[in-house]
């Protein structure tokens, strides 16, 4: 099967695009939860980019089964970025959870999610 664009290029562009949307979201919005969503989007985009760099032309999932015999390792995609991204997703989850906890804490202190209300932390 031939495609006009290689799969990994499509994924790279999608991932980078998501990361940019996330950055815009972080910098332009004033609402704490939207900033957290933006940072989550940024991370997701970069995860897609990392997975895309592991793609090998015509490769399949690195699982030894009917589709990929043990004698033909060349047809598998690179498993290292996939393993790294599993780690990265968990850490991303952890960071998001802590950010949300802080947001709840800030909201209970000021009764607002507007980042403009927390001026004393500005330098």
């Amino acid at each position, binding site marked *: 099967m031939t495609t006009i664009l290689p799969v990994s*290029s499509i994924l*790279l562009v999608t991932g980078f695009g998501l*990361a940019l949307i996330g950055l815009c979201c972080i910098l332009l919005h004033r609402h704490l939860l939207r900033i957290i969503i933006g940072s989550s989007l940024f991370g997701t985009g970069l995860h897609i980019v990392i997975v895309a760099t*592991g793609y090998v032309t015509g490769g399949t999932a690195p*699982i*030894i089964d009917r589709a990929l015999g043990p004698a033909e390792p060349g047809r598998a995609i690179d498993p290292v970025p996939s393993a790294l991204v599993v780690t990265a997703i968990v850490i991303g989850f952890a960071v998001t*959870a802590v950010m949300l906890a802080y947001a709840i804490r800030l909201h209970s202190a000021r009764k607002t999610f507007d980042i403009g209300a927390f001026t004393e932390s500005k330098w």
Partner: protein
Amino acid sequence: MIYRASVLFAVALLGLIFLRLAGGYAERSALRPLAEHYVSQAPLELGVSNIVTGILIAYRGFDTLGEVAVLFMVAASVGLLLRKEEAGRKYTEEGRRKPAGEIVTTGTQVLLPVILTFGAYVIVNGHLSAGGGFQGGAIVASGVMLLLLADPGTRVNAAALSVIESLAGVSYVAIGILGLVLAGGFLDPRFLPPGEAGAFISAGAIPVLSALLGIKVGAELSVIIDRFGR
């Protein structure tokens, strides 16, 4: 206005970098040497069918242990951050928290066993097919989340979950030390026989480690979700 313009300028610059990166990227047509080694050697050395699980649990097992420690730390810090002045909070909570509607409640009763079974399936199939401890643990925790959504009054027994989680963590490290004594190094899963590749009981200690990881991650995520729900 100036802020907005400068933000857009910065984003455009980063976009330019990304564009150059994406434009200059050429898809690989062969594996890198390290990946080549993993893909060809993991099934022989470890008897594991899913190479990604082999890397996560055997080759980078110590890293995974650190990752679980991060999750544990997050559960602790979220608990610390969301610890409320109980009295004042409860008063406002009474009015806000209502059980979900009929559809969600019935759906939970139907779906919860399926979700938990699927989570267990994903956890114990990590060495054979797509899956593993982290993924399955997340699925189990999503079941807990559904339970909390359906009835916010549900009390998750956080103390029991902490005990389960600690036991799983201690067993994980104990198996790691067994690997140190009986096989090549810390968290080396090869002290159990590798078995026949593709069979359910195979790949040495990897399924055991995977199951412990799944229990630990599921319990930790459930505790975190419960703390947000309270």
